[in-house]
C-alpha cells in the first residue's frame, strides 16, 4: 500500500506565484538535466557500454531541485546511492559526472567513485554515501563545522524512506536538534526501500511525525511539486541559518524506475506506476509555466533541446577522456601530502 499522497494529484496545479520566472525556468532545466542524464545512462547500460551499476531517481527530480534552489552555492549536501539528481541540482559539472560514470580520469572522482559516490567539494557536494543512513551524521558534522567556523553555511542530508530506520537517523536528529545545528534533513520518500513499502517498514508511516521526538519541526510536502519543496526548504534553510536549528522535511514522491539498473519491480502494481507518471514533476512545472504565461511552448522546447545537446556533448566528451589506469588507485588510499 503506497502513501496516499493528497497533494500529488494532477488536478492540483503548481502554485508558482511570487516566484521569479528565471528561477522557475532554471528549476525546469535542472530537473530536465537530471532526468536526461539518467535516461542516457539507462540507454548506455542497455547497450553495454557503461561499467558498474546505477540507481535512477526518475520522477524524484523535484525534491533535489526544489531543495537546492533554496540553498547558497557554498552550502553543503550529502547524498545517497541514488544521487545523480542531487549532483545535477548542486551544479556538479555534467561532463565530470559523465566521465566518472565511464570510469575516466577526468571524472568527478577520477574514476574511483562511480555512480554511487559522485562528489564535488567545490560545489559543496560532500559525497554520495551508499550505505543507507550513513550520510545523515556526516551532513550534521558539516553543519557543526559551519557553526564552529561561523561560516553561515547550512548542511542538507538527502536520504530515502528506508534510512529513517537506521540508528544514524535517530542519533543524528537528536544531536542536531540538541545543539541547534544549521542542518536540514530531507526524507526523499519514494515509497519503496527496494521492495519494502513505507507501511511495511515503518510502524508510523507518517515519517515527518518523527520530528516531534527530537523537538524539531517536521513537514510533509508534495515532492513532485518542485515549488512546494522549494518554499519549504527556503523556510527551513532560513531557520537553520538564523541559529534556530534543524528541520525534518519529508518530500513524498515516487520512484518510477526499478531500484537499480534493470530491476523490474514485480512487487508493485503497474497501474500504480502509471498513476504516478501522471504527476511527473517536470511536466507539472511546465504546465504551470505555460498556464501562467511565464513561458511559451517554444521556450520550453528550446530548453529541452538544449538539455539533450548538453547530454550528447557530455557523452561525446566522456568518450574522449582517459581510461582509469591499473595503478591509479594507489595514489588515493591515504593523503601523504604536506601542509
Amino acid at each position: 500500500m503506497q502513501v496516499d499522497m493528497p497533494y500529488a494529484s494532477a488536478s492540483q496545479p503548481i502554485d508558482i506565484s511570487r516566484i521569479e520566472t528565471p528561477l522557475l525556468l532554471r528549476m525546469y532545466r535542472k530537473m530536465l538535466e537530471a532526468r536526461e542524464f539518467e535516461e542516457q545512462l539507462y540507454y548506455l547500460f542497455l547497450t553495454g557500454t557503461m561499467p558498474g551499476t546505477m540507481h535512477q531517481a526518475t520522477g524524484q527530480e523535484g525534491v533535489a531541485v526544489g531543495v537546492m534552489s533554496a540553498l547558497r552555492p557554498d552550502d553543503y549536501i550529502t547524498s545517497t546511492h541514488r544521487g545523480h539528481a542531487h549532483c545535477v541540482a548542486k551544479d556538479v559539472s555534467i561532463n565530470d559526472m559523465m566521465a566518472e560514470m565511464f570510469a575516466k580520469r577526468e571524472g568527478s572522482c577520477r574514476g574511483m567513485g562511480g555512480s554511487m559516490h559522485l562528489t564535488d567539494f567545490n560545489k559543496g557536494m560532500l559525497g554520495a554515501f551508499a550505505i543507507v543512513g550513513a550520510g545523515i551524521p556526516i551532513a550534521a558534522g558539516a553543519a557543526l563545522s559551519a557553526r564552529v567556523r561561523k561560516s553561515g553555511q547550512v548542511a542538507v542530508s538527502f536520504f530515502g524512506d528506508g534510512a529513517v530506520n537506521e540508528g544514524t537517523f535517530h542519533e543524528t536528529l537528536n544531536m542536531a536538534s540538541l545543539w541547534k545545528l544549521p542542518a536540514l534533513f530531507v526524507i526523499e520518500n519514494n515509497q519503496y526501500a527496494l521492495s519494502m513499502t513505507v507501511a511495511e517498514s515503518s510502524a508510523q508511516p507518517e515519517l515527518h511525525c518523527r520530528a516531534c521526538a527530537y523537538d524539531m519541526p517536521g513537514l510533509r510536502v508534495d515532492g513532485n511539486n518542485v515549488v512546494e519543496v522549494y518554499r519549504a526548504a527556503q523556510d527551513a534553510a532560513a531557520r537553520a541559518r538564523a541559529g534556530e536549528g534543524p528541520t525534518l522535511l519529508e518530500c513524498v514522491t515516487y520512484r518510477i524506475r526499478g531500484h537499480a539498473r534493470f530491476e523490474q519491480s514485480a512487487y508493485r502494481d503497474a497501474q500504480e506506476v502509471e498513476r504516478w507518471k501522471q504527476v511527473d514533476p517536470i511536466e507539472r512545472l511546465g504546465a504551470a509555466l505555460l498556464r501562467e504565461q511565464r513561458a511559451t511552448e517554444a521556450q520550453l522546447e528550446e530548453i529541452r533541446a538544449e538539455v539533450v545537446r548538453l547530454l550528447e556533448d557530455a557523452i561525446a566528451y566522456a568518450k574522449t577522456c582517459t581510461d582509469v589506469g591499473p595503478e591509479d588507485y594507489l595514489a588515493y588510499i591515504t593523503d601523504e601530502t604536506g601542509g
Partner: protein
Amino acid sequence: MRRLSMAGAIREAMIQEMQADSSIILMGEDVGKFGGAFHVSHGMLEMFGAERVWDTPISEAGFTGLGIGAALTGLRPIVEYQYLDFIFCAMDQVVNQAAKIRLMTGGHARVPLVFRGPQGATGRGAQHSQSVEAWFMHTPGMKVVCPSTPYDAKGLLVSAIRDHNPVLFIEHKMLYGAASPGGGKAVSDSSIQDIGQDVPEERYIIPFGKADIKRAGKDVTIIATMIMLHRALAVAAELEAKEGISCEVIDPRSLVPLDNATILNSVRKTHRAVIVSEDVTRAGVGSELASVIGYEAFYDLDAPIERVGCADTPIPFGPASEKHAVPQTSDILAAVRRVLD
C-alpha cells in the same frame, strides 16, 4: 624535565595542538564536564569552551559521523570513545565512511580525524576489555597507532592530529597512570616499575612508521606493543641479569604504517623473533608481523616465530581467567625460551 603520566602526556598533546590550531575540536562521551572517563581531557572544557569540546550523547555512530562531516569541511576533530569496545557501534562510519572517503572521491577528500580511546583487559569483563587494533589494521585508509610510553604518546598524538587521514590512536587503560575522576585508585600493573616518564614541555613529533628499539640486544628479538612492551622489558631485564641472555625489545609504535625495516634488521641479527600483543592471537597483530618476518627473513631465522597474544576468547571477568587468557610475563618468558631451544 617534568614527569608526566600517559594520560597527562595525551592531554598535553591535545591542549597544545588545540591552542595552536583553532580547527581542532574534541568530541565524545563525558569528555567535557566530567573530564573524560579516564580523566584524559580533564580541564579542557573550561580551557576551550563548549564549541571546541563537545560532550556528546551516547551515540557512537552518530558522533563519529559528525566528526567525519566536520573533518571534510575544515575541522580536525578528535573523537574519543570511552572504551574502544564502543567503536564497534560506529563501525560503518569508521570503516565504510572515514577510511574509504578519500579513495572513493579520487583523492579530492581529506579526512583529518583522530579516533582515540582506551583498550585492554583490566577486570571489566568481555565488553570493556578487548583489544581492537587488528580490526583496523585490516581497514585500508586508516592508520593505527599504539603508544606504550608517555613520551611516545605525546609525539605520536601530535602526529595523529596533524595527519590528513583517519588515525586510530589506541591507549591502554593500565598505562594511563591516572586515577579515575571519582577518586578511585589508578589501575596499574605490578610489572611496570614507574608509569611516569620525562616528557618535554615543548611540542614534538614522533612520525608514524618508526619503530623504537626500547632495549638493544643480540640473542632474541621481541616485538611488543603497549602494556606488553613493558612485560617484555621486564622479561628481558630478568634474562639478562640471571642468565646473560640478551633480548632486543622493539616497540613498533604504529602498526599501520609498520616499520618493517627496523624489525627485519633486528631479526636478521638475532635470528629469533617473539611477537607479543594483547589482541586475540588468531588473525591478529602477531599473525601480521609473523607473516612479514616469515616472508622477508625466512632464511635468517634459527627458530619458528613465536606469537604471544590473547587466547582466542572474549575476555572473561574472573581475575584468574582473565590472567590466563591475556599474556603474562611468564608466557613471554616461555616463548623466548622456546625460540632459544
